[in-house]
């Protein structure tokens, strides 16, 4: 593709308001043909809103989009695709019960025969050295393969601008490497790439230019290759990064929480079975569990928290007592609290007040109920204490959980569990979708709780998070747990291979990772 234009896309003063929030405030930047341009910002900085306007899903309130040096109006995604804009969504726009081919056909605007479309798909797969089977049903695919569907769907349009929204949050380090290869190949053909992320080292590896957003405004532009992750992070959060204060030398107590041969059959069509999970957490220790999404983390949380009791009572021990056959209430009474990954509708009921959400899990331990009758006063007092101690921004215990921002709701949920003074705390994705300030507060609270002698299990897809706070860690892959690693001694490569399913062989290659994944 030859390009006579100066800029592939230019945004001028794009503004978009939602009730109560100015999501984008006069955002302007330019992307050259073939440039890989990062859009950097925290959760809630306005990145997603901005690209939705470029892709025509929503319209700006004010401002101008200039495409190949011509002002345009992008009425809908179809118009965007016609211009040559492709998009890979953070939350995939896929249809689980349909085949790869049907999914791709839905993303194409012309009418193709099945055979000719399949032919085109195979050409693209070959050209970019990607593996994908067109007749598989999406629900049977790994997360990495699903992302490939989105990428193929975008590539088939021969895009001149490809938008990637947080593409690596669900990939193993090796898969990230593969993705970057594909993107570099694509940019060489003249296609510009708008790469949205908050992962700074990735942006340094891949991008030639970056625009930094904070609170809906452009707060800086830079060449990421000339910056350090720290300097970019400070631009992104607008201040100094807060360090977690953690005692260097720590004494651990006896084994407090033990999973010993925990096996759970997979539930339904999409469930992952847990196979002989074993690990030990000592008093005062933070134990991290890494892994790519969809490898049994949800099932593990349900099994550990008691939402999914097991028939083998000895599969989980709390201070030596078998608890695996108990339900969530029974375990909570013994001092095991948990925080699930999904806040809305699992960790909290969005249509309920914060007080009611406190009753949800703290009613027994904190004495909010006696002989079946709720004590409203006790519940309100506890809720107020959670709000104060964890600096939850809200109008009061009576406000609805759904009215809180993601970070504030997460702080509330964490606070609700931590103030119950648990012996064991199980948390999944503690800082998912949370701004840096709230994330730092949550990490500090976990470290402090551990220092008081609790055993903590943190399940997370964010390796950086686990490396920062945990003392030991393991990796979960397809429902099986790896050996336990000491943080500080394990290399990223080794962990990455474990995440991809290669157990115990540090010299395995990326190709092997791939082979394990496809079976």
């Amino acid at each position: 593709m030859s390009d006579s234009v100066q800029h592939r896309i230019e945004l001028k003063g794009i503004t978009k308001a939602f009730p109560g929030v100015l999501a984008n405030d006069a955002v302007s930047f330019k992307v050259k043909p073939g440039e890989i341009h990062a859009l950097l910002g925290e959760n809630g900085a306005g990145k997603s809103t901005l690209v939705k306007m470029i892709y025509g899903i929503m319209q700006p309130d004010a401002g101008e989009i200039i495409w190949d040096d011509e002002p345009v109006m992008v009425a809908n995604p179809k118009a965007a695709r016609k211009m040559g804009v492709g998009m890979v969504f953070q939350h995939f726009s896929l249809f689980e019960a349909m085949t790869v081919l049907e999914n791709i056909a839905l993303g194409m605007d012309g009418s193709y025969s099945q055979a000719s479309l399949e032919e085109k798909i195979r050409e693209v797969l070959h050209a970019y050295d990607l593996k994908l089977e067109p007749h598989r049903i999406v629900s049977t695919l790994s997360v990495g393969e699903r992302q490939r569907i989105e990428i193929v769907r975008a590539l088939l349009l021969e895009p001149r601008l490809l938008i990637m929204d947080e593409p690596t949050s669900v990939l193993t380090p090796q898969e990230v490497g593969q993705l970057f290869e594909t993107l570099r190949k694509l940019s060489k053909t003249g296609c510009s790439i708008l790469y949205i992320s908050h992962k700074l080292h990735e942006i340094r590896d891949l991008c030639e230019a970056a625009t930094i957003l904070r609170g809906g405004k452009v707060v800086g532009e830079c060449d990421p290759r000339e910056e350090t992750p720290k300097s970019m992070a400070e631009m992104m959060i607008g201040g100094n990064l807060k360090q977690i204060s953690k005692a260097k030398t720590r004494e651990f107590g006896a084994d407090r929480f033990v999973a010993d041969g925990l096996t759970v059959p997979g539930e339904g069509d999409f469930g992952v079975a847990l196979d002989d999970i074993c690990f030990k957490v000592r008093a005062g220790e933070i134990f991290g569990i890494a892994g790519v999404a969809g490898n049994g983390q949800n099932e593990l949380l349900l099994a550990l928290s008691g939402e999914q009791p097991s028939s083998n009572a000895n599969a989980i021990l709390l201070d030596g007592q078998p608890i695996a056959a108990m339900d969530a209430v029974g375990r909570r009474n013994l001092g095991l609290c948990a925080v699930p990954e999904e806040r809305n509708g699992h960790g909290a009921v969005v249509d309920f007040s914060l007080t009611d959400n406190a009753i949800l899990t703290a009613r027994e331990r904190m004495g909010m109920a006696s002989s079946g009758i709720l004590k409203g006063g006790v519940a309100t007092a506890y809720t107020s204490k959670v709000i104060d101690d964890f600096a939850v921004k809200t109008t009061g215990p009576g406000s609805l959980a759904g009215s809180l921002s993601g970070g504030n709701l997460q702080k509330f949920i964490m606070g609700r569990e931590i103030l119950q003074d648990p012996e064991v705390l199980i948390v999944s994705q503690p800082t998912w979708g949370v701004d840096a300030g709230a994330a730092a507060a949550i990490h500090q609270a976990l470290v402090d709780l551990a220092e008081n002698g609790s055993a903590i299990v943190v399940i997370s897809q964010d390796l950086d998070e686990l490396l920062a706070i945990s003392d030991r860690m393991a990796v979960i892959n397809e429902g099986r747990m790896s050996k336990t690693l000491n943080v500080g001694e394990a290399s990223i490569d080794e962990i990455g291979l474990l995440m991809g399913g290669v157990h115990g062989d540090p010299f395995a290659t990326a190709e092997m990772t791939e082979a394990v994944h496809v079976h």
Partner: protein
Amino acid sequence: MTYSLLIPILMTIVGAATPILLAALGELVVEKSGVLNLGVEGMMLIGAVTGFAVTATTGSAPLGVIAAMIASAASAGLFGFLTLTLTANQVATGLALTIFGIGLSALAGEGYVGQTVDVFGSVFPASLSEHPTLRVIFGYSPLVYLSLALVAAVGWFLSRTRAGLILRAVGESDLSAHSIGYSVIGVRYMAVLFGGAMAGIAGCFYSLVLTPMWAEQLTAGRGWIALALVVFAGWRPVRLLLGAYLFGAVMTLELHAKAAGFSLVAPEFLAAMPYLATIAVLAAISARKTGMSLAPACLGKPFKPSS
């Protein structure tokens, strides 16, 4: 002897199966788009009374059917406005539509109780349609043949056309379809209106073909059986056809047992048979874990794009 009994039994089965097939086929398309319209019974009654009134007034049964389709589709449009545009609860709105249809049809049909109308002519020459044996194939109302053609058409539409693919996609993941750029609400409106029109034909089948007359609550809960049939069929048109004829057979059993003076069990038990059979079949179908995976993932959930 047995032969002369068999032909009318087979023909009654077809008669009993056709209206629930028509209504269920419409609901299948509605549910495939992710919408649960529990107002089938109400829409059928509105169609039944409209078809009867228009036929009685104009003397033309085809005109009656068309009017019924329009009236029922209009009531479905009301359902669509509430659930799609105003995001009202689909279960409650469907129930309201049924209560409304029962009342409205009773009100509108008051003047027509006791009247009869000229029914449809036959599509085939009398030598075939009134032949003692061959009438089992050629002796039905045109609506019967229409229902069979529609099964094929809907099956082809859903599995072979791009529009059908889009409709399934909307029912599978409304948010994904929206982000790719399809009009979720638009597709669902079309499906809901189609479901209404089909319920209208189904209603007409009672008032213009089976009875043919108008009485309050003429459809006697068959709309609910049509809803159960969609679950039974696992959202597949061909299995819907089989299921409808199976249900038709159960209902016919009741009629013929009564007529034959079959006295081993109470007639009330026979009258309850179709409903008991429906429950039994639902239990058998729903117990299978894999069966439900065919249900459209978004069924019954209102579409709320997160701005």
